[in-house]
Every structure is written in C-alpha cells, then in structure tokens.
C-alpha cells in the first residue's frame, strides 16, 4: 500500500501507524527511544533523590511545595493524556476532524500545565529566592522538573506543527504514524509526571 | 606460518619475566614487597589470583597452539570441506562449570578480605586512647599532605610518622579536589573525597620496615592536576616507644631560630607572609581551612623538599626561587613577593633549623 494514497474509512487499516514499513520502523524506533528516555529520567530522578535534602541552608522542600498547584497541574496533564487517547481513537476510526479537535484540546491542557509550571517556578524564585543556583537541591529540582517541562514544551510544538502541516490533508498512511508517535510521546510525558508529583512533590512534602 | 613459534617464544619469555620481576620492585614502593598485615593480605590475594589466571591462560594457550598447528591449511587441502559441527553440549557445560568453580575459589577470600579491611570499629570505640588505636587525620591538598594526630593535638606534613606492629587508623579527606592516599608497600589505596571522610587502617611490620630502608614511599593515586605525579610523601615507621617520644616532643616544641641569619630568616618568614599559610609549630589551633600550606614544624628533618627534591640547601633555595619550576600549578607560586638571594639564604637557614628532635 502506498503511503500517500487517498484512503476511505473502508480502506483505512486497523493499525494505520504500522501499516507501512516506514510506519512500523517509526513506531518501533520511537518505543526504543522511550526506553532510552526512561533511563535518562531515571538518572535525573536518582540525582534528585541523592540531593533532595541538600538545601545548603536554603529553603527545604517542605517549606516550598504547595499541594494545590501540583494537584491542579497533575489533573491538567492526566486529562490531556485522556484527550490524546480520544484523538487516537478518532484516528483509528478515520475521523480526521475528531482527531484534530481532541488534539487541540490536548494542546490547550498541555499549555495550561506549562503555564502553571512557569508560574510555580516564578513563585519559588520570587517568594523564596529559591533558584537553580541556591543549593544542590535547587539545581536538582529545577533540572529534573525543568527537563520534564522542556519535554512538554517540545511536545506542544511538535503536535502543533503536525496539526498545522496536515490541517488540509486528511489522514494518510504517511502521517498517521506521525500522529500516533506524537501521542505516545505525550503519554510518556505523563508517565514521567506521575513520578515527579509522587517522588518530588509528595515525598518532598512528607520529607 | 611460523606465528605459533613466535607465540611459544613469547610465552616462555613472559614466564621468565614473571620470575624475574615478581620478586622485584623496590622494597619501599612495591606492592610486591609487602611490609605489613594489610599489604600481606592483598599480596596473597594477588598471588592467588595470579595462580588461577596463569592456569586459565595456560589451558587456553595449550588448546590454542594445538589447534592452530594441527588444523592449519596444508598443500592439497584446497578442496577439503571440513565437517560442519554445530556444537557440543558436554563441552559447553565443561567450560561453563570449571570457570565458575575457579571464580568461587577466588571470590570467597576476596569477599572475606574486603570485609576484614573495612573493619574500623576500633576507631569508634568509646574512650579510645592512642594506645588502643592510633588515629591519623590525613588531609590531601593540591600537591601536599597534612597529617594530624588528634590524640596528641599535633600536625605535621609531607612526612608521615607511624608506629610499627599495630593497626594505624586513618581518617581521609581532601581539602580541594579529590586525591587518593596510597602507600604501596603498606597496603592498597583509599580515596580522599571532598565531601566525606573515608576510613581505613594500615600496618607496618617492624622487621620488614628495616629492610625497606629509611622510608616508605607514599603517593597520590588520583589525577588531581598538573603536579599530580609529584604529590609524593614519605612514611617513617618507628617503634611504638620512639613514636610516643616523638609525639611528646612535638607537643612541646616551639619553633625558634638560632644564629643571626636564621633569626633574620624568621623575621622574613613573617614579613613576607609565609606565616599566613605555613605554621611552624606542630600545635596549630587554626581551623583547617586556614591551614593552606604545609606545616613546617619539623622541616629541618624532612626527607624531601616539597615531597620530591632531595633535602639539601640547594633544593630549598631553588624551591624558594621558583616553586613553579618544580611543581607546576602549585598553590605557593605568586603568593609571596620576589625574594632577594640574601633573603633566600636567610630563609633557608631558618627553615633548616626547624627540628623537633634537637630541641
């Protein structure tokens, strides 16, 4: 089957992301990449855990963290994960508009999350003078959470670029794997966040 | 192909080398000439593992030579197609199990020794006195070593004095970057980290100390900058009595200058700012951050200048003229004004007079 071929709901395959060799490669390659990302984040988590009490006289995690912000952020990101699942649901049903709509919602939620995170950082810097150079804890905190934030930002850009590029083209076996892989990435970001809110924030609050 | 022949020659050459070199190395610096309990333990592990490895290598070499010789291509073999053997389970099991057994033989004493060498409990014993367990605090600095004897409240540098025939316990730390504390004849090394204190012990056997000569050589074993290679120290192991005597002398010692030139040197030592870094008395109450240069209390009795140069007048003068030339990157360069030759003479005279024993 040719990648650019115009498809209908009938001819659209059950697993469009893996229907071409390119798609299959992309799918697998991306999963492998996520395996590597797992180790990357594990290294950052490990570093954070080793330094989580090294506040060097600066504010401690108990003094800093505010459950409300983290809770809202978590809800936003978890929900965005569900919305991107919806998007993939529509993709599999060859419903391009549905997919675009839900991806748009995902973007909005992700954007809100990012905004909240930026606000949170701003808050720490200005209220507590807690910066990336305050202490080893500050460095470890901002680099871990910031790396996640950078992933979110990249994901937003990526999905937007995909949407803009394909807005008039409809679904094809050429772009279906791209959308699918982007949604995998988005879920992965969520997986990482689950550990961030648990290990960094919640554990930081109990001490 | 005569390759196997070169091979054979190489092997016998190596065997010979082993024989010649194993007993070799200088007794004051070689791990192959152990001079105490710790080094002995490690030496026996080294030898045990060498025996196992020689055995393994021998087995491999014998099969190897046989195969390579026996099954080499000969004239007339052009069309020969050897049988395509898939493998052999029995053989696979043999060469899995035998190595496992050999490794167990090695691993058990290794684990035992690892725990034994980490036993520093006597350091923590309540009401510890230096007679039960002598403790030395080692502080490694960019290219020099400080040795503090907390039980006696004294500090010395570059030359470590220890009693023989007992476990001497060390607290190890680094003042700037990471170094590693190593006296090969007395035992393996331990790193001096920047953020924590490491602890271990060494022993010095009186009999073998004598054979080794006046001093054991100590070295820094972790790359720490340009003069890493020159970050040597010397170890003098003396009997317990001598050691106690020395420590008592140190405690009461006050640096003083005798003779005009030396007194002039003493004055210069202060004026030129030397005293800001170097203490001249073994009792130095300043915090360690303030102790930025080696303690020079017993400088006149040192074995080396700056740990590396022969201890004589000329070397001291050379060092004072331009330390950078002898220890690139050292922290003394440019911390004091340029000295006149006459001032150098005076300082040298003063420094050479700093002796604990003669007091």
């Amino acid at each position, binding site marked *: 089957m040719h990648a650019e071929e115009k498809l209908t709901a009938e001819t659209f395959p059950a697993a469009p992301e893996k229907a071409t*060799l390119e798609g299959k*490669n992309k799918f*697998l*390659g991306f999963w*492998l990449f996520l395996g*590597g990302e797992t180790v*990357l984040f594990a290294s950052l988590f490990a*570093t954070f855990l080793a*330094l989580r009490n090294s506040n*060097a006289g600066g504010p401690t995690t108990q003094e800093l963290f505010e459950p409300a912000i983290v809770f809202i952020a978590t809800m936003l990101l978890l929900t965005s994960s569900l919305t991107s699942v919806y998007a993939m649901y529509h993709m599999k049903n060859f419903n391009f508009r549905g997919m675009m709509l839900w991806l748009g919602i995902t973007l909005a939620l992700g954007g809100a999350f990012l905004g909240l995170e930026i606000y949170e950082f701003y808050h720490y810097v200005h209220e507590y003078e807690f910066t*990336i*150079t305050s*202490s*080893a804890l500050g460095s470890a905190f901002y*680099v871990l959470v910031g790396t996640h934030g950078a992933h979110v930002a990249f994901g937003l850009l990526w999905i937007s670029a*995909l949407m803009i*590029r394909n807005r008039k083209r409809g679904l094809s076996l*050429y772009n279906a794997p791209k959308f699918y892989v982007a949604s995998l990435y988005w879920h992965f970001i969520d997986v990482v966040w689950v550990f961030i809110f648990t290990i960094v924030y919640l554990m930081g609050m109990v001490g | *192909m005569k390759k196997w022949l070169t091979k054979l020659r190489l092997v016998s050459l190596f065997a010979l*080398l082993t024989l010649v070199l194993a007993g*070799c190395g*200088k007794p004051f*610096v*070689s791990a*192959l000439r152990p001079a105490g309990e710790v080094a002995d333990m490690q030496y026996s592990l*080294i030898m045990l*593992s*060498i025996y*196992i*490895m020689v055995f393994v*290598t021998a087995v*491999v*070499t014998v*099969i190897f030579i046989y*195969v390579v010789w026996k099954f080499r291509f000969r004239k007339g073999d052009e069309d020969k197609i050897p049988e395509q*053997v898939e*493998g052999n389970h029995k*053989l*696979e099991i043999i*060469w*899995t199990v035998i*190595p496992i057994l050999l490794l167990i033989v090695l691993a058990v004493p*290794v684990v035992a020794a*690892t725990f034994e*060498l*980490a036993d520093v409990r006597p350091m923590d014993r309540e009401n510890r006195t230096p007679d039960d367990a002598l403790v030395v605090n080692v502080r490694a600095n960019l290219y020099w070593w400080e040795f503090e004897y907390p039980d006696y409240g004294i500090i010395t540098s570059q030359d470590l004095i220890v009693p023989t025939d007992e476990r001497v316990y060390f607290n190890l730390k*680094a003042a700037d*970057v*990471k170094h590693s504390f190593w006296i*090969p004849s007395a035992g*393996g*090394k331990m*790193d001096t*980290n920047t*953020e924590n204190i490491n602890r271990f012990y060494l022993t010095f056997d009186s009999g073998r100390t004598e054979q080794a000569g006046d001093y054991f050589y100590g*070295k820094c*074993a972790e*790359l720490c900058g340009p003069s*890493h*290679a020159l970050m040597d120290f010397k170890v003098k192991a003396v009997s317990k009595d001598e050691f106690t005597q020395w420590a008592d002398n140190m405690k009461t010692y006050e640096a003083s200058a005798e003779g005009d030139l030396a007194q002039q040197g003493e004055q210069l030592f202060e004026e030129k700012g030397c005293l800001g870094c170097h203490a001249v008395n073994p009792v130095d109450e300043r915090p360690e951050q303030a102790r930025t240069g080696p303690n020079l209390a017993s400088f006149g009795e040192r074995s080396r200048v700056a740990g590396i140069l022969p201890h004589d007048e000329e070397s001291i003068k050379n060092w004072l003229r331009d330390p950078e030339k002898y220890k690139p990157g050292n922290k003394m360069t440019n911390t004091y004004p340029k000295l006149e030759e006459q001032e150098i003479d005076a300082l040298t005279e003063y420094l050479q007079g700093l002796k604990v024993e003669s007091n």
Partner: protein
Amino acid sequence: MSTLTQRRGFGAALWDYLTTVDHKKIAILYLISGGFFFVLGGLEAMIIRIQLAIPNNNFVSAGLYNEILTMHGTTMIFLAAMPLIFAFMNAVVPIQIGARDVAFPFLNSLGFWLFFFGGLFLNLSWFLGGAPDAGWTSYASLALESPSNGIDFYLLGLQISGIGTLIAGINFLVTIINMRAPGMTYMRMPLFTWTTFVASALILFAFPPLTVGLAIMMFDRLFGTHFFDHTMGGNTIIWEHLFWIFGHPEVYILILPAFGIFSEIIPVFAKKRLFGYSSMVFATVLIGFLGFMVWAHHMFTVGLGPIANAIFAVATMAIAVPTGIKIFNWMFTMWGGSIRFTTPMLWSVAFIPSFTLGGVTGVMLASAAADYQYHDTYFVVAHFHYVIVGGVVFGLFAAAHYWWPAMFGKMLNEFLGKVTFVLFFTGFHLTFFIQHFLGLMGMPRRVFTFLPGQGFEIGNAVSTAGAVLMALGTIVLLYNVVITSIKGEKVGMDPWGDGRTLEWAVSSPPPEYNFKQTPLVRGLDALWIEKMEGKKGMTPAEPVGDIHMPNPSILPIIISFGLFVAAFGAMYHADHAFGYPLLFAGLAITFGAMLVRSIKDDHGFHIHKEDLMNEEDEKGGRK
C-alpha cells in the same frame, strides 16, 4: 531523478558524500573520520610514551601532558574505536540481514554528522585555549577546578557526538528487528549482526546516564548550579556513578562488535561453521545484561563500603564465564577445520590469547580487596590496553582487511597486511605486558613523569620501544591503503572464496540498493548453504520490481552544524557578549532544519524495474 547516471567531478562527489543517506557511503565516512582520529589518538599515545621513556623527562610539560592524556583516552574511545565499529556495522549489517537499507537512512546520516561535529568541536580545544585535562573520566572535583575551557569542550563535544551515537544505536536496533530478509530468523542471524544488536541496546541504555552527567556538569561549570559543589550540598560521587554506569557498558559496546567480527572471520578461514552458535548468542546477550550491574568496580577505592564492594566484585567476576564460553567456542570452531592464515585470520587468531590475558587481569581487578592495590596504577593501564587493543583494535584491523573488498571492491595487499600484523602484534605485547609489573611495583597511572630510583626505568623504556613498533605497523597499514587504492585490482563477488554470509552474495562493492531481489534465507550462513548445494548465489524471495530509495539530504549536516554553533555560544556566554546570541542562533539553525525536515514531505524515489534490467545487461556486456 535518475540515480543510475553517475555524477562526475570532485565537487559532485563531495556533494554526494555530504548529502548521502546510503549506509555504505556513511560507512566510508565513518571509516575515514574514525581512521583519522585513530591516528590522532595514536600520535597522542606516542607523545605519552616518549615523555615517559625516561625519568624526569621534559618532552612535554605537566599541564600539557594531562591534556594529551585526556585527549588520547577520549579520542580513542569516542572518536576512533566507536566510529570505526560503526563503519563496519554500517557497511555490513544491512547486507548481512538481506536488507536494502537501514531503517532510518536520514537519521543514519544525522548520527554520523553529529559524531563528526562533536569530535571536531572537542579537538578545536587544542587551538582555543587548551584541551580538557581531567582524564577521560573527568572526575567532578578536578573538572570543576580546571581553569581553561578544555572541560567545556569535553562536555559539549561529547554531548553532541553522544546524541549521534544514540541515534545510530536506535537505527541499528530497528533495522535488525524490522528489516531482516524472509527466512532470516533471529537464530539465523550472523554473529556480527547479533553483537551489533546487543551493542546497540547497550548504547540505548548506557548513553542517557552519560547525557545526564555531561549536562549537569555543564550546568555546574557554565550556569552556576551546584550538583558537584559540596559546599552547597552537592556531591561529586554522583558524577562517578553516572560516568561509570555509562562507562562500563561502553567497554562492552566496544568489545562485543569486535567479538562479532572474529566470529565472522574465524569460520570463514577455518572453513567450518561457528561452533556452538546458540551458546555464542546466549553469551553475547548475557554479557550485555551483566554489563549493567558491575560499574562500581571502577569505584572500589571510593569508599562505598564493603557490602557494595563485595557485591560488585562478585558480579564483575561473573562476566568471565560467558566470555570464557566464547573463547572456547572460537577455538573449537578451528578444531578440525582447515585454517588459512590470511591477514584477517592472523588478527583473529592472535586475538584469542591476547584478549584472554587482558580478560584475566580484569578478573584480578575485580577482586575488590586486591584492587585497592591495582587501582589507578599501570596495572589497570595494562589491563585495558590488553582488552582494548588486543580485542577491539585487533578486531578493527581484522575487519578492515576482511571487509575492505566489500566496501571498496579491492583487496588490501596481503604481504603488507602481514607486515603490519607482525610489527603491531610484537609492539603491542612489548608495550603493555611490562606495564602490569610497573603497576604492581608502585607506578601510578596518569603521571606526567616519574622520579628515578624507584625501579620504573627499564619497564618504561621497554614500553616505549614497543609503542614505536605499533606506530610503524600502523604506518605500513596506511601505506597499504594508499597503494591499494592506487594500484589494487578490482575483485568480484566473494573474493575470499569461502564467504558464508550475505555480504558476499552481492558484488563488491554492492550496488546502492544492495539486492536487486531480496534473498531467501534458508539457514545460518545463508550463502554457504547455497554454495554447498552447488548454486552460485542466493535464491530470490521476490520477483524483480521497482526499488524504493530514500532521497539524499543536506539537512543532517545543517542540524549538526547548528548544535556545533550553539555549543560555542553556551561555552562563551559568560565571557563574551556574543555568547547568548550565538547559542540561540545555533539552536535556531538546528530546530529550523528539523522543522524543514518535518514539513517537507520526503517520499524518496524509485529505481525502476527497467533500469535494473538495463543495468544488468550493461554489466553483462562489459564483462
């Protein structure tokens, strides 16, 4: 676009290589740059050996020595050994599995250019204020103190080339998993493919910790964070762990493909199938697996405590078992065979005892309590040169001679090859054997000089003499390469006569699409099977049809160049006003090029059936 029309002229050829996404050409790019860096690292080694030939030598100064030492280790590991391995992986693996290409041709090229610009960046340090000088391990406390920009070059250069390596690793994994020809099951894959697979998996999991380590050290040095600053709560041991969690698997990333190379060559020249294929595969996987649990054996003297030391000691020793399985299986492959001592075979045969010597000293090092004596001495230097040179470099030399025809269509001169072997082999043992004793006799490593009277004189002099022989051997090899490319005769398919795997089932060098028809694989040593049944080549698994090919692209260079520029910006931002603008300009180039890549559809092109047929006729006519 018609691809079969050869474009001529130097400019066109250069452009061809700059934009190529063909794995065979990328292999040549890796070979040339890896070879260049090998000579560079070798020159650095020669300076090291000259400086240490006699006590108190002042051939180079103390500070410069540390730079050379650091660059020798870093260059050899990251810029010579790994790229050279990638060269052979790229040249051989896709063909060995019967594929037309790798899974991601574009990323393949990107991986190469990232490595190239990373290596270039690192080596520019020589001209821009001094090279890194904290050893290839760059331990945190020293690295943070180092005043010049050298360490920054190390951090950013390795970061860039590290990303390239990661990409290459993923590419090989997907290629091997997804692109195998019909019939090529996992248990029929040649061992070089298997070891590539496992080594790539190790890359996938080992490089991220390095990435993190490099990144946070860069933050510490350039942006004021305190990960390793103990006065602010930081901890330098974190770096040591991150580095070795990467570093130990790294040494298996190097050696496993070398094992693969020997497992290809030995059966060919012993004319016998690999003995114990399945246990060889098993051992490879096991080594890869265990490789992740032993890193702290580099940190026995750090003070991790006896429990950790004991665990890591025993885990490390365990690796001897699968490695031993391999050693014995190679020897039994030759058992009963008919061994032809060609140059590649000489290297392979010599590897067995040489590597064993290095391996057993590894087990000695693994004995924690005894390692307190060995650590950071020349005993360690001897160990790792025995395994690296006696294993990896021998493997690379063997591969170069063995696969030269597959890459260039010409055979390297056998006589010169043997001269190289004798010189290098002798020099190698002369250089490094004696270093075991130097270490045991109390000589620390990483010293720019040693003082007389400690018993180190003879050993060092001998060692230096050996290094000269190695250099001579390398020079003969270079001469061989030049002579061959000028005068060498073209060879056809299967030039060694006893090829067993698919890379010998295509012409030398292969056409850009590798296989006109995808071959049908009927067992291990696919080509051998067909030959034994009296056939000339492989049975095709499909009719002749259009072949889909990827488009060449200049974007990989642009993406990599952007990071190269950005790295300068990051490095100089504190001292120069142009720092930040440069950083953002660089990133803009990179992301811009990535955007272009994702927006511009790239469907590749097709080589048509008719053209394939015509080409066949032409060839037939010429013959």
